[in-house]
């Protein structure tokens, strides 16, 4: 038996609905017999009547409603149809959910699922990676699972956490990533994972870019150099200690992310390493992001806009020469 990243997300939600009466799913097309634009909730409305609810096309009100329900003790999961549309709900996420605990001492346990990242042909409005934007604001936890196992356990953790969680699930990984089975337990939230052990260069990544980084590392291994690859798992909190410990071993750092280049998760990784571990570096650190343009439609443009294993391997070779 094998299970995909997408099935892991569905199974996590089924488990949550089964185990916890406070959980409900709220989003566009998630209910009925349809089960969501990507089928992440397929069959759940039938199995859990009244708890998997279709909403109007109202991202702001979807999150607002979830906040209100959470204040009354529920554990809502909001599915955005695409991460890109969560921009409509920024106000509720950043200004309402994100400020609530600080202002009132009452936390808002909502989970917002963002089908994120690029797939070819999806264009500017169905491809975005928004983890850097959400991580910038106070009051939110931002998860970016890169494996089937993490997709499963981290979603369960997200709902258990008393604070708002933005859960960025990668659409490219939905079908491309498979595991033999689902784990009963995952690593603690907030801890980065050593995805590949190496000694010559540290690549820090997350979500789909972790998979691209691992491919790049295998390529470079054929050349006799061993790259250490760290999966951040959550971009916020960012496990700086694990990153620093790796850079202490390798002396070189490359941060890889899929969001836009200005600021963001990769910039944060490099800022922290240069601030706290400048003496550990044998070469200037580097980073790779998507380009600073909207995300293009045509596959030829898209595959150049988005980082991939080849670009990562080329940058790694350059760093290893320095």
């Amino acid at each position, binding site marked *: 038996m094998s299970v995909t990243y997408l099935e892991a997300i569905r199974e996590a939600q089924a488990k949550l609905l089964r185990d916890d009466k406070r959980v*409900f799913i709220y989003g566009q097309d998630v209910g009925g017999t349809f089960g969501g634009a990507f089928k992440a909730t397929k069959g759940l409305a039938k199995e859990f009547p009244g708890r998997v609810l279709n*909403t*109007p096309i*109202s*991202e*702001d*009100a*979807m*999150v*607002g*409603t*979830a*906040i*209100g*329900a*959470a*204040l*009354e*003790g*529920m554990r*809502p999961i909001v599915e955005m149809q695409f991460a890109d549309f969560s921009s*409509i709900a920024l*106000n*509720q996420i950043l*200004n*309402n959910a*994100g*400020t*609530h*605990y*600080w*202002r*009132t*001492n*009452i*936390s808002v346990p909502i989970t917002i699922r963002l089908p994120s990242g690029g797939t070819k042909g999806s264009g500017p409005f169905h491809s975005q990676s928004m983890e850097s934007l959400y991580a910038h604001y*106070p*009051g*939110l*936890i931002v998860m970016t699972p890169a494996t089937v196992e993490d997709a499963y356990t981290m979603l369960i953790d997200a709902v258990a*956490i*008393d*604070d708002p969680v933005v859960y960025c699930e990668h659409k490219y990984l939905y079908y491309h990533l498979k595991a033999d089975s689902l784990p009963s337990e995952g690593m603690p*939230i*907030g801890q980065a994972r050593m995805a590949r052990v190496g000694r010559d260069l540290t690549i820090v990544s997350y979500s789909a870019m972790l998979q691209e980084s691992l491919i790049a590392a295998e390529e470079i291994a054929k050349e006799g150099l061993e790259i250490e690859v760290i999966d951040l798992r959550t971009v*916020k*909190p*960012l496990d*700086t200690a694990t990153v620093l410990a790796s850079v202490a071993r390798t002396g070189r750092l490359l941060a890889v992310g899929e969001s836009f280049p200005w600021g963001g998760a990769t910039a*944060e990784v490099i800022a*922290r390493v240069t*601030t706290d571990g400048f003496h550990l570096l044998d070469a200037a650190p580097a980073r790779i992001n998507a380009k600073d343009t909207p995300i293009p439609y045509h596959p030829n443009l898209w595959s150049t806009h988005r980082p991939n294993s080849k670009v990562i391997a080329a940058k790694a070779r350059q760093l290893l020469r320095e």
Partner: protein
Amino acid sequence: MVLFHTTENTKIFLRTSADVGYNRSMLQTARPKKKKAPTEAPVHEKYLEAFRWMLLARLFEEKLASMYRGGRITGGVYVGKGQEAVSVACGIFLQKGDIFAPLIRDQAGRSAFGEPLVDVARTYLGTRTGPMRGRDGNIHRGKPREGQLAMISHLGAMVSVLVGSLMAKRGRGEKNFIGLTTIGEGGMQTGASHEGLNIAAVEHVPLVVVATNNHYAYSTPNDREFGCASLVDRARGYGFEGYELDGTDLEQCLDVIGTAVKRARAGRRPQLVVASILRLAGHGEHDDFSYVPKEIYGEPFACDCVRRTEEFIKEHQLVDSATLKLWREDAARQVDEAFATAQKEPVPNGEEEDWCAISTRDLVDKVE
């Protein structure tokens, strides 16, 4: 090229002035009971209680404004002068188990709902003892565990939040509860308001939305705010029951809003009440509201509801003048006590803050 329509006739500002009244023919979706004849002795059973809350709010906010002018309050002061009758009617019918999501000009309603005056003083002074502990101030306050949501500045955002809270209560099998939220004609124009009102009707929650048209969004008059004849026309569009009323008339406010509350409690569709008043102060105390033309003060909706209510009480001898005097003195004493208490309490200290925006301490991102 004509970019926008202008007129020198200030009447254009006064879109709802001529036909304010709560029996407009198109609003018969839920017609409140007939108004009593003016000569008939009063009045709503809560009339006098409501007046005392209005008086308390007015005196409290006069004190606030005076402290602001004296430089004793940081940030802004936002008062509900002219809106007390509408606001008190929003708070006075709510019971334990109900949820109130008030907005900027709702001191009277907040007090009637049970917010201690000292908590208002604490929030304006930013003391550590207040509900917001100096982390947020002035009107951005609430106690969600006690049924009073803490508004954010972004207008319309609290409508859907209240919908979600009501859904959760219904989901747990609670009965006989409602939610009431307030908004202005300015706030009615945001996308969040539209989404919130629509989703309230979709979810069929026991909700009352009281929209007060005070004729100005900060300095912008009605003709640059919306294009419909009256905002209550939207009730039908959203699938609400709608009412329109003169917000300077306490009797109407109690009658209509009280009816809406009862109907929401009885499980009818969400209720939209649109009240017409004039904001008798600036947007905040920093604002001299010189943009309001003098002519508008002659309109019926420009009447001061506190004065009007007091005159009605005197005219109909609901209580004697000695009692009125006592009530005023009692309110003034409560105001003084609230500030005297809050002023003695400690204010926060940046060095002692934990600077932590999430409750899960081991997931705090440690960064300078």
